[in-house]
């Protein structure tokens, strides 16, 4: 079956959302759209069993002290990737607030947490204990690295499976 799904890439500024997808997706728009429009659209096709799922990736500008995600961009999404930078503790805090905001604006959606920059082990600010603690929220978590390509394809596969389950 051919399906199309909208998914969002969310996270604090500089967590590596765009780097994560850059090597793995088809794109026609430049990254300047992040600063102008607040979003950049990419495309990624994933095959899950007999389903060919085209993911329309809404790569949203990272949230920080001055910029907030536009809730309108979340409307109609089937799921999202929530990216955290392991080398910056504050991105974990931002991830919590973003996740709450998404639930408030569009309800519960399948999502996957990506603990990014996993290759920079010496710079980690988020401890293993904190990661273990995340289990209590029933979040699905994957460690990833844009530099090595670690778990990037897998992330799309896992999220797509979750979204197909939710249909």
């Amino acid at each position, binding site marked *: 079956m051919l399906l199309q799904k909208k998914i969002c890439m969310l996270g604090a500024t500089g967590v590596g959302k765009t780097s994560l997808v850059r090597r793995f997706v*088809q794109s026609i728009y430049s990254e300047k759209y992040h600063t102008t*429009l607040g979003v950049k659209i990419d*495309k990624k096709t994933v095959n899950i069993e007999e389903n060919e799922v085209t993911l*329309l990736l809404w790569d949203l500008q990272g949230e920080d002290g001055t910029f907030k995600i536009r809730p309108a961009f979340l409307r109609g999404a089937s799921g999202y990737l929530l990216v955290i930078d392991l080398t910056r503790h504050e991105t974990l805090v931002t991830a919590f607030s973003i996740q709450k905001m998404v639930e408030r604006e569009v309800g519960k959606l399948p999502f996957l947490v990506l603990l990014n920059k996993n290759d920079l082990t010496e710079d980690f600010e988020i401890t293993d204990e904190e990661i273990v603690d995340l289990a209590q929220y029933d979040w699905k978590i994957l460690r990833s690295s844009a530099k090595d390509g670690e778990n990037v394809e897998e992330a799309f596969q896992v999220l797509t499976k979750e979204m197909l389950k939710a249909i």
Partner: protein
Amino acid sequence: MPSGTLQKETAEVSSENGENPQFYSKTEEILEKTNADALSEIRKILVQPEEVGEVLPSAFQKSSKSDKKLAEATLPIVEENIRQSVQRDPKILAEALFPVIGPAIRKAIAEALGAMVQSLNQTLEQSVSPKGLRWRIEAWQTGKPFGEIVMLNTLLYRVEQIFLIHKKTGILLQYAALDSEENKDADMVSAMLTAIQDFVHDSFNESEDATLDALRVRDLSVWVEHSPDAILAAVIRGNAPLTLRKTFIEAIERVQFQYENELDNFRGETKTFEPSKPILQECLQMQVGEEGKPKSKIFTPFNFLAGSLVLLFIIGGFFFVRDYRRWSNYLERLDSEPGIVVTETKRGFFRHEVEGLRDEMAVNPETLLAEYGYEPSNVKSNWKGYQDLSPQFVLERAKKILNPPPTAQLSLEDGVLIVRGTAENSWYLEARNIAKGMAGISKFKVVRE
């Protein structure tokens, strides 16, 4: 049947023994009676053929005026009726259509021939006119086919692409394009259009029902029409009339009507919307023609510059041709003048040059310049002296050098200088000596009278 009666009868039966077979037959009797009465009542109220017959025509009329929903709904029934009629007896439909088909065929042939003649006229016009030449240069410069350049230059508007977008998700449901090669990234474009729409909403705090109607970049514009669950975005090149919006609105309404459930329960299966493609293709309209182009376009800076250059070229050309003819005539005149031999000429932009040989007895070339519109300063002349040996010049030269008295006349016959009349002997002697040394004179002869 009044409900009070039914309750009373049911109560009577209930008071009897429930195991009794009489109970069941009585119950059935009551139910049958009840159903029959109730149905009769309903029929009386609702199914009066006369009343329905009165209401139906006006209902059809009103519905067809407001939208096409009734036509859409009854289409399958009408199609099936026609199919069955043809299956049963094709003659009936053929006879009914006969008065229509004949004129329709004649009209179609006339239109086809007319279009062919018009096309031929356009081709001839475009091939040989300056406009056609300009377009050929444009085609050569841009590397586009000539046909495409002609199309773009004569275009009023062209709906190039139609996107049918799911409003909530921004996912492309269906797509149609005028060119056979489809936009492979249409799904990303569709999502971006939705993002732009959301961005505008957020940025200007517009209400949900306020929608983005159009985007415009130079001669390319995107018109957007909305239904409750879908968006139709049309990419248009040129200046389209606002009446075109009606076409788009009707199209999106038809899609919304036909796919209401699918749009409402959309889960990403875009294949469901493939049958809607013909509706989108109906929106791919275009209009060509020079007449509708805004007149102000004639006075663009480019046209002004091009016009100035052409004018300059024409004026320059006029002066060039005029000067060319003057100079040629002047040289022809010099060639025809006795005692002048032109050996070299040079035609310059502002000043010409001429070189050659000139007998001192010949006409002065500079005195001829004015006849041809030149000032002496326009022509640099370089004449070297020589003696022309034609009889006319030899005689003239002899007269000038020998200076005969009025009583003596000189003539030249076959190189012989003949003196007639009378003169002093001393003159004869001196003249004989001089004449012997003159070019063109072989003998000196005196004829005394």
